[in-house]
């Protein structure tokens, strides 16, 4: 039997973060959605299905596991939706053929090899549509995330679940005598290669804290649980409030609350980031701040792919695509979608809630900027500084993302041009 993790057709709901990764690679808690699925069904070999243009770069992260390979799934299958936030489930891979559904979405499909052979054609999604019609359906109460803000909303809960599942605790690294755990020490794990400088407080009264190998926490940092600090990250005097997941190789300072920083990104300086999701290779300039609460405490509306969506949540920050850089003093509005590979010169005004990908955004206007080649050069430089190779597959994937986001960018650029000459 194989475990198949696939992306369904709602991946655009996770733009710009899903422009460069499968939805199931998004982080929630200490691990990604796919890691939680693998952990929940750990006795099975795995295959993945994602959008074709992501396959080559994604393949480099999963070793020999098949990606988009229909021939590799000629087997009994337990097929799971990559949007499933799988924590403490009672559902098992073994059992009768059935489709687990929540509202209109598939959560999982349990299917035998003969049914696979009967209906599997050239497309996994067509196969799933077919088995949805022919197999018995079972309504299940599992969590499927639908938008980026759902992931942030569930982050604290996922951090606690991940800490319990991973089952590690204790301070094994170098922790200075003038630092302390405030709260239950069994709710803290500091890995053996982590270093904690003087005057650091790890406050576990609100939930567990994980500090991975290679992490350095500099003086005057306060970390509230639940929180996860990924390998080789530096916390530079930060006020890291509850519910934060900070991925590997980040540099984080200032105030951060209930936010996910995917990895390889910097928010070194003061400034507030809350209820946000930041992609990889992002640099937030000093005093970059996002609002995550409206002054009238009403629910936050986010404009996604041109459509306004009520999040039904009063705390929603920014969703910032990979490789985007902000200038000093950039101010993001509540519920902002900030495109990838965009260079933002913020100024003193709060920015519009939607900023397109691959552009230069300055003085409240979107420009084509210096071109894709220059953006790719900058990406190569940024990745090289962290000893990460920028491959031809990366170039091809980013170029594809550039084309996918063209219409939105052109519309914003044309609107800005009219403003230039009318001023």
């Amino acid at each position: 039997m194989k475990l198949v993790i696939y992306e369904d057709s709602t991946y655009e709901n996770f733009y710009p973060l899903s422009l460069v990764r499968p939805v199931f690679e998004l982080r929630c808690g200490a691990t990604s959605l796919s890691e939680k699925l693998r952990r929940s069904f750990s006795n099975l070999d795995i295959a993945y299905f994602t959008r074709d243009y992501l396959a080559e770069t994604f393949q480099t992260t999963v070793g020999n596991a098949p990606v988009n390979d229909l021939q590799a799934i000629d087997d009994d299958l337990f097929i799971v939706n990559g949007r499933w936030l799988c924590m403490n489930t009672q559902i098992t891979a073994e059992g009768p053929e059935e489709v687990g559904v929540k509202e209109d979405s598939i959560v999982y499909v349990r299917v035998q090899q003969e049914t696979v052979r009967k209906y599997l054609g050239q497309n996994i999604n067509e196969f799933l549509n077919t088995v949805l019609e022919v197999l018995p359906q079972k309504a299940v109460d599992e969590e499927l995330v639908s938008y980026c803000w759902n992931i942030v909303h569930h982050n604290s809960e996922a951090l606690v679940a991940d800490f319990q599942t991973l089952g590690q605790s204790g301070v094994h690294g170098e922790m200075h005598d003038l630092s302390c755990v405030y709260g239950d020490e069994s709710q803290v794990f500091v890995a053996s290669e982590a270093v904690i400088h003087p005057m650091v407080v790890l406050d576990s009264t609100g939930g567990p804290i994980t500090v991975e190998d290679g992490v350095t926490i500099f003086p005057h940092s306060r970390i509230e649980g639940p929180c996860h600090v990924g390998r080789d990250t530096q916390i530079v005097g930060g006020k890291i409030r509850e519910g934060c997941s900070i991925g590997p190789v980040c540099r984080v300072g200032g105030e951060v609350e209930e936010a996910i920083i995917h990895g390889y990104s910097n928010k070194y300086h003061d400034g507030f980031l809350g209820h946000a999701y930041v992609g990889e290779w992002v640099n937030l300039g000093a005093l970059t701040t996002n609002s995550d609460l409206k002054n009238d405490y009403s629910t936050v509306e986010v404009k996604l792919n041109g459509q306004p969506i009520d999040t039904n949540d009063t705390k929603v920050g920014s969703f910032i695509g990979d490789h985007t850089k902000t200038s000093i003093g950039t101010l993001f509005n509540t519920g902002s979608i900030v495109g990838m590979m965009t260079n933002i010169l913020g100024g003193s005004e709060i920015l519009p809630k939607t900023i397109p990908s691959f552009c230069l955004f300055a003085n409240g206007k979107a420009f084509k900027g210096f071109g894709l080649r220059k953006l790719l050069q900058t990406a190569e430089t940024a990745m090289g500084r962290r000893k990460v190779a920028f491959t031809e597959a990366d170039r091809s994937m980013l170029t594809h993302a550039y084309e996918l986001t063209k219409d939105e960018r052109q519309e914003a650029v044309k609107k800005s041009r009219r403003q230039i000459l009318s001023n």
Partner: protein
Amino acid sequence: MPSNEEIRDRIINVTTMILNIDPSQIKDESDFSADLGAESLQSVELVAGFEEEFEIEMDEEEALSVSSVGAAVEYIAKVVAEQHG
């Protein structure tokens, strides 16, 4: 199709507006950066301004590599001919 003279006049108008300089300062041989003081962001604004003025789409890198007003007249005349000719 506008003549090169008309294109030059319109380029001077846009440049005057974006760089906030006197049109008498602008010659064919003027370098947007070295002589007229365009910083990198203003160069991007100039490209956007020319695109709006002439209703054209320019390749960002090509457009930004045009350094003088005279060269801009030639380049924009070529793009206008390609896209509106």
